[in-house]
């Protein structure tokens, strides 16, 4: 069975927010839209986003890490938001594992938001329904789009290609390979939600110089350090004493 997911590589994410606004842009005019904004030009603007980047610091100066952490619905394999929904609006698609909300059934009661341990669901203040990432289901299944474009908007946008997209149940997929080979992990596994989305950790490349590297026969100073010999006529002790 297919389980589509995003695998987000924190090793290359620079926190540029391309995924945030490309998502908003695609989805506000898409099937999951609109994504409204309250006070868009006023105090404390607040809009619906399916994807946000949180930035936090780890460690103490000077051993500080700045981590950019994009977060959206994790499309859990066992999503706690689905069973709590009183109307059946929240559901998980059998064919690809995407967790979706049927706006026609949603009454905006927010049970799903309380059940989601990841804070991935938002109430759209204008339509009063719960909204969240759909993995751009209206892009990835749209046969009228060129095949190369049938990816979530955030994946297409990401300048560092930090967002990988594919089927984590297919062991040969790019996302499964990345999880396997690069230590991909799920968020808060103790909740038993089995998030489909995974994160790849930072990987630090350490430099190293061996002392012998600095002692080399081809050191150019062996040439440049050899200055011209003084001319024979320049003053010397030969001229001044007989011992």
């Amino acid at each position: 069975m297919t389980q589509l997911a995003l695998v987000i590589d924190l090793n290359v994410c620079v926190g540029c927010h391309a995924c945030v606004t490309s998502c908003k842009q695609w989805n506000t005019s898409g099937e999951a839209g609109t994504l409204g904004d309250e006070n868009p030009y006023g105090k404390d603007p607040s809009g619906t986003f399916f994807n946000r980047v949180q930035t936090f610091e780890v460690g103490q100066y000077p051993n500080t890490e700045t981590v950019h952490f994009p977060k959206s619905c994790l499309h859990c394999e066992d999503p706690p938001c689905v069973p709590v929904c009183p109307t059946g609006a929240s559901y998980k698609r059998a064919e690809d594992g995407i967790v979706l909300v049927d706006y026609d059934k949603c009454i905006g009661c927010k049970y799903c938001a309380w059940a989601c341990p990841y804070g991935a669901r938002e109430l759209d203040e204008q339509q009063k329904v719960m909204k969240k990432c759909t993995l751009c289901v209206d892009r990835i299944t749209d046969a009228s789009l060129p095949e190369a474009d049938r990816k979530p908007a955030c994946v297409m946008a990401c300048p560092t290609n930090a967002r990988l997209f594919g089927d984590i149940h297919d062991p040969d997929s790019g996302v499964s390979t990345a999880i396997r080979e690069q230590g991909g992990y799920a968020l808060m596994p103790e909740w038993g939600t089995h998030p489909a989305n995974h994160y790849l950790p930072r990987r630090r490349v350490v430099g190293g110089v061996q002392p012998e590297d600095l002692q080399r026969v081809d050191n150019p100073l062996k040439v440049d350090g050899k200055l011209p010999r003084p001319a024979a006529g320049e003053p010397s002790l030969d001229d001044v004493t007989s011992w």
Partner: protein
Amino acid sequence: MTKPAAPAPALNEVRTTTCYMCACRCGIRVHLRDGEVRYIDGNPAHPINKGVICAKGASGIMKQHSPARLTRPLKRREGAERGVGEFVEIEWDEAFARLEQRLAGIRATDPKKFALFTGRDQMQALTGLFARQFGTPNYAAHGGFCSVNMAAGMIYTIGGSFWEFGGPDLDRAKLFVMIGTAEDHHSNPLKIALSKFKRRGGRFISVNPVRTGYSAIADEWVPIRPGTDGALILAIVHELIALGLYDREFLVRYSNAGQLVNLDETSDDFGLLVRGAGEPGDAPGFAENQVWWDRHTDGPVPTHTEGADPYLLGEFRMPDGRPVKPAFQLLQERVAPYTAEWAEGITGVPAETIRRLAHEMGIVARDERVELPIAWTDTWGREHASVTGNPVAFHAMRGLAAHSNGFHTIRALAILMSLLGTIDRPGGFRHRAPFPRAIPPAAKTPRGPEGVQPNTPLAGLALGWPESPEDLFVDADGAPVRIDKGFSWEYPLSVHGLMHNVITNAWKGDPYRLDTLMIFMSNMAWNSTMNTGEVRRMLNDRDADGGHRIPFLVVCDTFQSEMTAFADLVLPDTTYLERHDVMSMLDRPISEFDGPVDAVRLPVVTPPAGCKPFQEVLIELAGRLRLPAFVDAAGARRFSSYPDFITHYETEPGSGIGFLAGWRGKDGAEFMRGAPNPRQWEMYAQNNCVYHHELPPSYQYMRNWNRGYMEWAQRTRIRRWGDPIIIQLYSEVLQKFRRAARGRGAGRKPPAHLRARVETYFDPLPFYYEPLERAATDGERYPLAAITQRPMAMYHAWDSQNAWLRQIHAHNPLYVNPVTARAQGIGDGDWVWVESQWGRVRCIAQWSEAVEPGTVWTWNAIGKQPGAWSLDVDANEARKGFLLNHLISDRLPAGDGAETSNSDPVTGQAGWYDVRVRIERAGAEEPRETAPAFAPLPRYPGMSKAIPGRIAYDAKGPAR
């Protein structure tokens, strides 16, 4: 969404154009649904961004729908003060008539009384041509207050620079060192490259007082005190030379390391390079005339003599008795005192770290050499079976540039890159066409006031690259001709002008008063100026007779802003999706390492009826004013529109060179040079709006000294001369200015009060000095550096009006290391006062472990005047956001009551990041709002009536 997911309604049209949400200029696809923008994504077929897009680019729709759009030409209401934003609508006819009358009068009497300064600098081919044809020297883009030190420091050293002109080759680098860079001009390409580099296992070191953005994914963060990078780099140079970790072969052949410098103190030519007998080369400064001291024959020989090998160290006497030393010897002597321990005390970087960095750079460069099987021939005819490279790449930007010691810091960086042998080689720094240029590039301004004549084009370019004091733009007394004092003895190498001086100088009448100041797309009444409060006062200040000291102020912009409020005449521009535009080889194209690339913008949506692209305004004005390049012999207008101008304009009749290099010639088969092609725009439109000329591999490297490349560049007329571009470890150009300051030689001499300044700062070798403002600051009272960075999701002032982007950065806190904050009793989130000797600002402090303790910082240009950019008067930007500019002076004391600009004394680069501050908690009784406070701006006529309290964008579509 409704179950089951129905396919989206088909997008009924996709058009390609070029983004302008920042200066990166990515290719975009604009997906339209019934003429409305449904979606903008990156164009996969575009060489710059290869399909990706950034947060700004993906928010273009909200710029299109911004309530800050200006839609009518406006004139200041009779009797209204400048700055309050009270206007009445006028028609374009009236706007043009007023401009025509005023500018024609200026042009007929004293053209320099008209000044044109532009915030964006990617339209310089046209704006520069307009100014030159008008005859005014008073023209520049914003480079002087942005990163001119980066351009000048590197171009005067290696003939190329970071930026549009060159960059790090991360496809082949193994070690990447990024210094003083937050977000970048070349934004998406750098992100793409960084990611690939990291995934290949490359090691990334970031040197920066702050760890944000790109630095977040660095393998090592080296925090440094602002303004001290020069000390770090010079200490690394010291270490590389001391340990022999330099690429000798590269330096000998491609730099002036072995060239002999005349050290005869009795000679007028002291400090200049020794020149041999023999014919001069094709071009001024051709290297054949310079001299090495040959190891084999123990005597002077022309450089590059076959079989000769120069001494790099030592001292010698020419046959005529003159004492001489190789340039490299002088460099070694210069850096001798710059030890790692010395630099630790200045930079805060431990000496051990400095040495480790130097060793790592030197050893990676030496031991991980890249070799590509590409045969090429150098200028001197030597054939090389392969192209080799030392895979250490650097990138640097405003963190180095925006200091008054930035020029020498950047010279030092270019020298470091050269010592490692990384110039235009795989894995190092690579040029982008039309670079490399000669050192210095050929463009020159007129040399004196006689170059400015009524009804006559300027006798030279408004901006140039001085090669000696003879190229300065000064009068017989050495006084400046330009309003910004560019190319004067005060800022001799101000190659991008000094836009930050214009308002202050015009207000003071120093060197003279202006009549009309036209500003395009720059927020000089707010975040783009130093000393904001005072500059706003100057903009509205009047003479005793009641007239404004700057009599007529024209502002062209797309949006209502703090600056437009001061205009006498506001010209509403279009957005980038509504106009034609070119990224020209005559300006700053989007070339790749592998060859020249230029591009266009095409309108994809219709502008509001009252808006007009600034390009069209200039073409119209040029025709009305009968500027020679824009009219025929009978004075009739030659170009019906901007697109028509682009198609048909040639730099001189029959030159075959125009603004666009692609698809020239009658049938579009020519590149760079060819007759105008009436179908040129169409051909760009059919090809993703971009022309990419890929060079053969043998022309893609070592271009400073690559015979094949140089011949190609000459044939295409990218260069006039084919002489090699020798790396200037030792800068003879700088020495020529120092020589003049010492009163030697026959040429121009600086006025007495500037002699010491020129002598000090025109050192032919890089040196470290404290930024000038430090010397004028009580360091005990103001112990902290204060800097800004540009966030990736915002482009300067532009994006606070963007409903999506402002939700990412609605206000800007002051980031303070907790150690520093606690020492002042400042808690996380407290309101604080930041105070410099020039002013004080109230803002919110936020603790951060990602900033070195001697520095506080904030995001640039988030704080806004209430009501500006169509934000509500209580918007976060105006109440919680703040502007650091209030703390930064545009002037510094210069002794004896004199003043000088707060700028680099070599280039005039604005010293934004030199300011020193102190912080203290705001009183509990104080308002929890930023201060100083400004009166709200009103909405102007023609702007949408109301600011929406909620939006839910949905591109119209038949199925919805």
